[in-house]
């Protein structure tokens, strides 16, 4: 099992009040799955994503990656996992505004200590895979929302991670561009990569092989669907 959450809890302290984000959530995600985490605002799906992405620590329970309890890892090991095994895609893209597309995409490889020539080669390859080759030396401000998200996806996959975590990747995009981005995620899943996508859009969630529905910090439904591998990766693209 690639990702396993055992009774994970995450609560936040707001003044003197403790607000639960996740209440005793258990979940297992296997290699090659395309999981959509569906739920309304405040249901805890982004909190869940942050815990899986090692951006946040659970206040209870355990998160295991390949059977290893992440609570026992030091900060450098956690950074190494984030760098090599997890790719993150955010709703707001979070590209560095004064760096070109290729410089943004190179960043994880820079932290991995990859030499510059090799970085350029791999970053260019990742950018080509998301079909953004014509924008390689552009600054993010000169790109459309969809192109920026593609650049963010290229950055997430450049280290060839096992898992791609996308938090509302289409949230800031129009529906057509959103479907294009889902197409990109499906294509990556087709190559065997595990994709976990947070969304509140049920239509987009239908493209996943499995839909985990959350409400009030808990998993309320976990439904398998027809595997995206059985469909064309570009089926979502009109």
């Amino acid at each position: 099992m690639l990702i396993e959450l055992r009774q994970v809890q995450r609560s936040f302290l707001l003044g003197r009040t403790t607000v639960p984000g996740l209440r005793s959530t258990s979940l297992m995600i296997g290699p090659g799955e395309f999981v959509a985490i569906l739920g309304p605002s405040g249901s805890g799906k982004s909190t869940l994503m942050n815990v899986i992405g090692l951006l946040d620590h659970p206040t209870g329970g355990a998160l295991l990656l390949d059977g290893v309890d992440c609570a026992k890892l030091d900060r450098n090991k956690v950074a190494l996992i984030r760098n090599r095994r997890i790719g993150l895609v955010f709703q707001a893209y979070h590209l560095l505004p004064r760096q070109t597309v290729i410089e943004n995409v190179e960043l994880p490889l820079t932290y991995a200590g990859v030499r510059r020539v090799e970085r350029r080669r791999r970053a260019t390859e990742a950018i080509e895979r998301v079909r953004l080759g014509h924008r390689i030396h552009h600054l993010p401000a000169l790109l459309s929302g969809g192109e920026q998200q593609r650049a963010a996806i290229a950055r997430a996959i450049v280290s060839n991670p096992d898992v791609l975590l996308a938090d509302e990747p289409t949230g800031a995009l129009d529906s057509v561009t959103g479907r294009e981005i889902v197409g990109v995620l499906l294509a990556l899943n087709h190559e065997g990569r595990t994709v976990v996508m947070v969304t509140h859009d049920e239509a987009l969630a239908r493209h996943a092989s499995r839909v985990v529905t959350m409400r009030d910090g808990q998993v309320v439904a976990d439904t398998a669907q027809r595997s995206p591998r059985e469909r064309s990766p570009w089926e979502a693209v009109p």
Partner: protein
Amino acid sequence: MRLTDYTRMAASSLVAAPIRSCLTMLGIVIGVAAITSMAAIGAGARSKVSDQIRSFGANVIMVNESGGNRAGLDHARRPLSFGDAGAIAELFNVSLAAPSVAGQARLVHGGLSWGTTVNGTTHDHFEIRQWRLAAGRYFSDEEERSAGQVVVLGSRVASKLFDDADPVGQVVRIVGTPLKVVGVLAEKGTSGGDNQDDVAFVPIATAKNRLIGGANGDRNAVGYILASAVSSEALGEATKDIDDVMKQRHHVVHDEDKGFTVATAASIVAAQEASTRTVSALLAAVACVSLIVGGIGIMNIMPVSVTERTREIGLRLGIGARPRDIRTQFVLEAVALCTGGGAIGVAIGFAVASVVAHGANWPWCSIPPWRPAPLYFPD
């Protein structure tokens, strides 16, 4: 992560916010510029003083009559004499001694005249002061003995009386006495505010017999004695020896009654240097305060910069940066700001020092990069 990548990342972050980077650097620029200019100006001033000592003659000792004795009985003192000069020249640590007289006189050539200091001295005077010739020769031993009517002009006097013409072989008149110009001295520049080139030298016998008259009417008396120590190391010892022999010759019991002073060029300029030392120290302190303020400025800006870039830091951590990577990046940014600010400050400091040196007619004295600046601070 590699050092080159850290450096590139820090540089790109600084370039990305040029105004913030420039303003942060400003304090360091001002501080370093102040310290550099202070150090360079101080070094220039000291170099000027050294040049003055050198131009006067590095190992020169001057014996002068002093104002009076303890009882205020000027008439009771013994004047300096040829005999004193001879005794001084015999001392172990003294290489040469030149008895001299000096007075103000007007030199006339054709329709031009120029008032200057006329020195009656011996050939040794030129050796002691390491005064080279620009043209002609010094006066000879024979001319010294026979009160020859010859004169050696300082470069300023020569230019005032002869303009661009060659003065050697020409005749000038001093107090109505015609004197043949046999040489023109090389330029020495100013010393202690005096133009050393505004001078004329004649044999001491000529000066005493024909121009100035005997000091205090005594044919054996001289106005002052110039001597030179055998080496700069022996200067102190030579000064003491001269003082001792003079006290012995003048039968001095108490130092207050001795009626003469023995001084070196270095001791004269040391007094001048001491007066500037306090001001230099004060300016150096102000410069240091500027630098400290600049450093505190950077120290304050960096946490602000971290706060401003929380999102960026979060992203970097999210894609695999270790806390150490982020820390290194920010430290390198601070180092780059300090280094850049320092470099600009040094350039501005040198520019200011160069302007000041030009204005004050000092030698331009840059600080060699392999010597730390504090070595140039005022003593």
